[in-house]
């Protein structure tokens, strides 16, 4: 007895055979126990394989190649100042969180106290290459980020904060990531918000609305008609470095 070719049986199981090939296979299978058994077993394996679920990509999987890409000749400088228009364009592209102007009043910081950010005091360093990565367990909401941006802005401008400010209530300082983790986080944020000008002043890893996220605070110099410096808050997904939120407050 001549048995159907293996590729034909694959087509039979997949249901992709033409009518005449399928009829020929059916005729053979009606009289061949061996092929019938093979087809049954192969079809069962196919079903089992198709039930294997797709697994989400782990965090940071893209970072090494992005870091290498940024070092290649011709790569645009990630820290270059591209003007206010770029910030506006970025803000339009991402899911935008528009923060109100924050003046450091106790009302603003009370808003933060209601959010889930942990209470810590964090130093801010102006040099982007040395900004530490704060690792926090907080799950930030847009409101919590509003408060955090206000507190950071207040610190940058040395304005006093309200007594209930969550960052000054005396709990333990956040865990600080390695320099490598900080560099990866910075690369991730700057990949998400390409061409947006600014100098990194603070870096946090936490979650944003449930998603693992890097939060970067950037100071932007005056330009494009702006009268004052801006503090922008950029939130990027740890998982894939997609932009999650973008906002700015006046300093």
């Amino acid at each position, binding site marked *: 007895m001549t048995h159907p070719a293996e590729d034909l049986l694959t087509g039979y199981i997949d249901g992709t055979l033409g009518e005449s090939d399928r009829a020929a296979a059916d005729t053979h299978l009606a009289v061949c126990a061996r092929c019938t058994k093979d087809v049954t077993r192969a079809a069962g394996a196919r079903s089992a*394989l198709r039930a294997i679920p797709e697994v989400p990509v782990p965090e940071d999987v893209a970072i090494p190649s992005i870091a290498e*890409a940024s070092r290649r000749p011709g790569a645009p400088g990630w820290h270059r100042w591209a003007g206010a228009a770029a910030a506006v364009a970025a803000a339009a592209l991402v899911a935008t969180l528009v923060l109100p102007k924050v003046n450091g009043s106790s009302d603003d910081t009370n808003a933060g106290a209601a959010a889930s950010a942990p209470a810590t005091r964090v130093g801010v360093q102006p040099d982007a290459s040395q900004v530490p990565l704060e690792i926090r367990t907080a799950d930030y909401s847009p409101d919590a980020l509003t408060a955090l941006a206000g507190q950071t802005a207040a610190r940058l401008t040395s304005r006093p904060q309200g007594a209930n400010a969550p960052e000054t209530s005396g709990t333990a300082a956040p865990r600080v990531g390695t320099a490598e983790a900080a560099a990866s986080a910075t690369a991730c944020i700057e990949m998400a918000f390409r061409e947006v000008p600014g100098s990194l002043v603070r870096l946090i890893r936490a979650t944003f609305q449930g998603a693992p996220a890097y939060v970067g605070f950037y100071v932007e110099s005056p330009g494009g008609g702006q009268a004052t410096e801006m503090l922008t808050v950029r939130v990027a997904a740890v998982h894939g470095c997609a932009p999650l939120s973008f906002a700015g407050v006046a300093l």
Partner: protein
Amino acid sequence: MTPEPDGSLVRRSLEGDTSAFGELIRRHQTRVYNLCLRMLGNPEDARDATQDAFVAALRKLSGFRGDAAFSTWLHRVAVNVCYDELRRKRRRPMLHVVSEDEDARPPEPGPAAEDHADAIAGSIDAAAALMKIPEEFRLTLVLADVQDLPYEEIANILDVPVGTVKSRVHRGRLALARVIAPEGSGEPQRPSAPSEDSS
């Protein structure tokens, strides 16, 4: 809005636009990671291989001619990274002294005794069973049945005729079935290594 084609992102990447390469990664990382996971069998190795695949892709990007889809080319890069990792693992030195009896065993033994019991009990899932069949079958099944790629694309990735892909799929499915549900006495049959077949 129509998403920017992969080819355009490749061109921009070659011009030094880091964000364009980032977009390529975002688009393809899930498939690449899952391919590596099913080929290598554990998340840590899969993550490392995925990272290596994208770094390799970046370095080889100027060699991408565009005569195949970028996803096909990227799969080929990832497959090579997985094979490199599998070869590296095979070269790892044994950490125990090999007795004469052990030395006499075939180099690639079939499922261990406890695995037989699992298979008989039907408790080996398909993902675990994949790790017990020859790599060439495993790769073809991952691309065809797990990732549901068209046979023509798989043929391009593997650089073999479509008929060969279909033949490997059939043999691979039977090999997998023997691991999941052994025939007859319950003893899983050792799948035969793939040989070159129809074209």
